[in-house]
Each structure stands twice: as structure tokens, then as C-alpha cells.
């Protein structure tokens, strides 16, 4: 397997609607998939949409090398994702992939994954990867409401899943940082991986700092290219403005100005 970025038409092998706003695309690659790491993402070309000029970035939700497929989990936000939601089995989707760095393999077994919204997407792949390396993380997932809680069984294969909803209709009620695991004096985890909306990641980072727990976050950002040439997606780090699409999307919070 090679580390190489590709521009490729992948075939939609399956579309799964999770709920009103979220769906999953399984995409079959025309050639043997390259090596993909958890945390990496794709840049998807939205065709036939007059208002979508640039590609759209999505995390790789999981990879099946046997079937030669990769999976995206997408939340409908605007025109681009609305168009992707109308893809059908057999259609093609053009991707640039795999892009970005990846989560690091932790030196501990006490691992917590925290995800909210469409930020849960890369955590499934990470959980799979960890469990292949004999690490079974605790996985805390935040959703808006019961209706949107999904894929819990899938996650459960790789670790212990905790659910929170904003409205308390399933699991604990509130934001992920309100979860009881964070309310104890000592945190049970030596490493946190987090992905979700900025305010959520910042709140988790604060807790991690407080407990001196190592923490990596996967940043969102508006991207034009996705492979490092436009310099549109920077975030301030200890090395100045760094590209989220190349030096990230995963950053250790120690390197961020948060």
C-alpha cells in the first residue's frame, strides 16, 4: 500500500439514511484503496449544484479494505450536502483523498473519544483502529435529540459507548462536557481524542488541561483546496499559522493557542 493522494471517481455502493439530517455513503474505489489513517478526510466534488463551486471536506468514517470501500457520514447543512444526500446507489462521487494527518496511536489504554454532531464521523474509524491495536476506548457521543442518536451498535463493537442528548431524551442530558465522567475529581483517562463543533472542543480541551490529560482535537475549517496549496485553512499554532488540511486536521491542544 502506498501513501499517495488520488483524484478518483468512486461508485456509491450503498446509501444509508440515519435520520432526517444524517446519512452514510459507502463508496467503492475503482482501484485498490491506498493506506488511510484515522482522522484523514476527503474533498468531495458536488456536481450539478449551481451554488457549490468548491469541493466539500468530509472525514473518513471508516474503511473496509476487503470490500475496497470507504464510508462517509454526512450531515445536511447547505446546498452541497443537500445534493450529496440525493446520490443513489450506482452514482459516482469524485474525491481527492486521503488528505490530512491523523490521530496518533496513544501510549495508554485509558482512552476517551468525545464527539458531537457530525464531528463523530472520524471517531468510528479511530475506534476501529484502536481496537485493532488492542485499545478499547470509552466513546462519549453527543446528539441533539433521541431521533439523531445512531450507530451506537457499531461503535459498541470497539469500546464502551456513552450517550448524551441536548434534551435528555436519551442518555444523560446536556452538553458532552456536562457528562458525569467529567464531574469526578480524577479523570479516568490518560488520552482524549475529540471532534465536534469548536465550542465543544474548546470545552473538552479546558477539562483536559485541568486534568493534565493529553488531548488531540480534529479541527473544522473552511477549505478551498484541501491539499495545502491555497493557505485558506490556517489555524494559529506554536509554529505560526499552520494549514489545517496538511499539518492538521488533528492537533494536540498543546500546540494550539486555545
Amino acid at each position, binding site marked *: 500500500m502506498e501513501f499517495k493522494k488520488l*483524484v478518483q471517481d468512486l461508485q456509491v455502493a450503498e446509501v444509508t439514511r440515519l435520520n432526517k439530517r444524517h446519512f452514510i455513503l459507502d463508496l467503492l474505489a475503482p482501484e485498490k484503496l491506498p493506506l488511510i489513517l484515522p482522522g484523514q478526510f476527503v474533498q468531495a466534488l458536488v456536481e450539478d449544484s449551481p451554488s457549490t463551486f*468548491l469541493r466539500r471536506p468530509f472525514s473518513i468514517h471508516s474503511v473496509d479494505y476487503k470490500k475496497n470501500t470507504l464510508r462517509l457520514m454526512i450531515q445536511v447543512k447547505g446546498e452541497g450536502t443537500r445534493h450529496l444526500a440525493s446520490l443513489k446507489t450506482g452514482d459516482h462521487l469524485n474525491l481527492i483523498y486521503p488528505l490530512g494527518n491523523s490521530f496518533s496511536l496513544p501510549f495508554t489504554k485509558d482512552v476517551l473519544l468525545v464527539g458531537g454532531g457530525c464531528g463523530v464521523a472520524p471517531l468510528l474509524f479511530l475506534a476501529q483502529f484502536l481496537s485493532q491495536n488492542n485499545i478499547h476506548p470509552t466513546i462519549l457521543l453527543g446528539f441533539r435529540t433521541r431521533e439523531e442518536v445512531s450507530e451506537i451498535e457499531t461503535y459498541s463493537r470497539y469500546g464502551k459507548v456513552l450517550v448524551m442528548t441536548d434534551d435528555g431524551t436519551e442518555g444523560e442530558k446536556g452538553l458532552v462536557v456536562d457528562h458525569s465522567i467529567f464531574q469526578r475529581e480524577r479523570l479516568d483517562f490518560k488520552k482524549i481524542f475529540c471532534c465536534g463543533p469548536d465550542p465543544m472542543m474548546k470545552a473538552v480541551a479546558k477539562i483536559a488541561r485541568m486534568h493534565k490529560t493529553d488531548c488531540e482535537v480534529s479541527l473544522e475549517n473552511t477549505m478551498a483546496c484541501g491539499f495545502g496549496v491555497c493557505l485558506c485553512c490556517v489555524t494559529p499554532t506554536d509554529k505560526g499559522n499552520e494549514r489545517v488540511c496538511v499539518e492538521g486536521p488533528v492537533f494536540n491542544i498543546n500546540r494550539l493557542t486555545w
Partner: protein
Amino acid sequence: MPDLAINIAGLHFKNPVTTASGTFGYGDEFLDFIDIGRLGGIFVKAVTGKNRDGNPYPRMAETASGMLNSVGLQNKGVDHFCREIYPRIRDFNTHIIVNVSGSTVEEYVEVAARINELEKIPAIELNISCPNVKLGGMAFGTVPSMAEEVTAEVRKVYKKVLMVKLSPNVTSITDLAKAVVDGGADAITLINTLLGMAIDAERRRPVLSTITGGLSGPAIKPIALRMVWQVHKAVQVPIVGLGGIMNATDAIEFILAGASAIQVGTANFIDPAVSIKIVDGIEAYMDRHKINTVADMVGALRTE
């Protein structure tokens, strides 16, 4: 077989397809996607005298058939370019042309002089048009006398091919073109981005941290074509045309309007392999229209 080669100010290009500064990194980011040796040339990201952090995030907004950026000349400075980047890219089998930027005449001259020493860099492109830098950048490109002065000063220290890239944000592009030719430019690049703005109505805020930014992409193609056409009629030096080129047909339109070579910019973000497709498409067009050399197409618009 049509011959795609073209001579620009004495420099031989294997074909008229090059890539625009700020949209192609230093070229090596594209090695996974294309055979860079098939391009006529690469215009690398702007180089300034000192390290620049660029503007704060957010730096990008999508617009109808285009995008705004306010990257703001982020780069590590000319020293770093000569030491770290040049050795990495010097042996690409295509012309590497450096986009030179600055806030003062002295900075332009300093950077140009340093680049002049780099054996494998056959030309520079003076960026007097970037609308993102508060100091200097904008003014040089919009006032003919200042444009002439900075060109003339750089001309004194730069001994190879000197291209000057103009800003479209002016009343008369031909006045600017004439000024830089008078200053000693060997060729003119047209166009840089148009100054624009995007607003998030829900948040009632500008989308960009800098409020305004540079508009690129197909939206600006009609304006770019018009400027290439006007300048082609006004000056004798060769023109490098760009602005919204997405495919070979667009590229040919620029050549017919008067460009001797073209640059692919924003299109690289959407299809990193598009520049090579454009090379192939131009060849197919020339075949179909029985045109032997690119020079035969330059400015060959029929207006009678």
C-alpha cells in the same frame, strides 16, 4: 502534430499552460496528481522580504462561480525560499517563476535581487496587485507612476525575464500596462483578483476576517478576457492571461484575446489535474482547427 511551444520574451516554454501564484504552492504538493514536467511553467506563491503570517482566519468565502480569499501573502520570506524551498524544486523539469511581492520599493528590489542569483529561476513575476496587504500592495498596482517606478527599480537589479502582474481594480488597465512597459517589463500578467466582499446575513458579519478579499474563479473570466484584449491592443510585450480558466476552451479564449501563455489558478483546487487536461485540450483544438503553432492563435480573434 501541432507544436505547443511558445517563446515569451526570449524564454522558451514547452507549452502555454502554467499555474497561477498562490494556487499551486511550490509545485511539490501536486506531484501525486500530475507529471509537473508536462507544464509550461509554474508560478510559485508570493515571496516577500521577511516572514509574513498572513491574515487571521477566516480567509475564504465561496461565491457564485468563484471564491474570495484574504490569505495575505503568507510566506516565510526570501531567505527561507532560497535556503529551503529552492533546492527542493529547482530540478523540476519546467520553468519555475517566482512571484515577488512587497510593501515598499526597497522590499521588491531586495527580493528580486536575491531571486536573480538563483540559477534555475528564469523569470520573476512582480505582484504589484495583491489587494490584501494594507501597506503598498494596492497602491503600486493602481497608480501608473508608482507601477512604473517599482518596475524600473526592480529592472535595475533583475537581469532575467521580468513579468509584472497587474491588478484589475483600476479604471484603465491599459494605462497601467503602458506604465510597466515603460518601466522595463518584459511581459505582463493579467489579472490578479478583483476586490470583493462576502457577508453572512444570519450572523450579520463579514465572512472574511479582513472584510474584503480577492475574487477569483469563473465569475471573473469575462473581465479578465476583456483586459487581456485591451492590453493586447495597447502594448507590444507578451501577455500571460488568467482569471477563471477552468478548461481548455477557456484557455483558448484567452489566447485568442491576446495571451501568449495562460495560468490556471482557482481551478487547481477543484481538479488538481486540470492543468494537464488543458495542455491536452489545447493540442486537440489546434489539431481540429489545423493550427500549427500557438503563436498563430495569439490575438487571432476575428473582429472584422
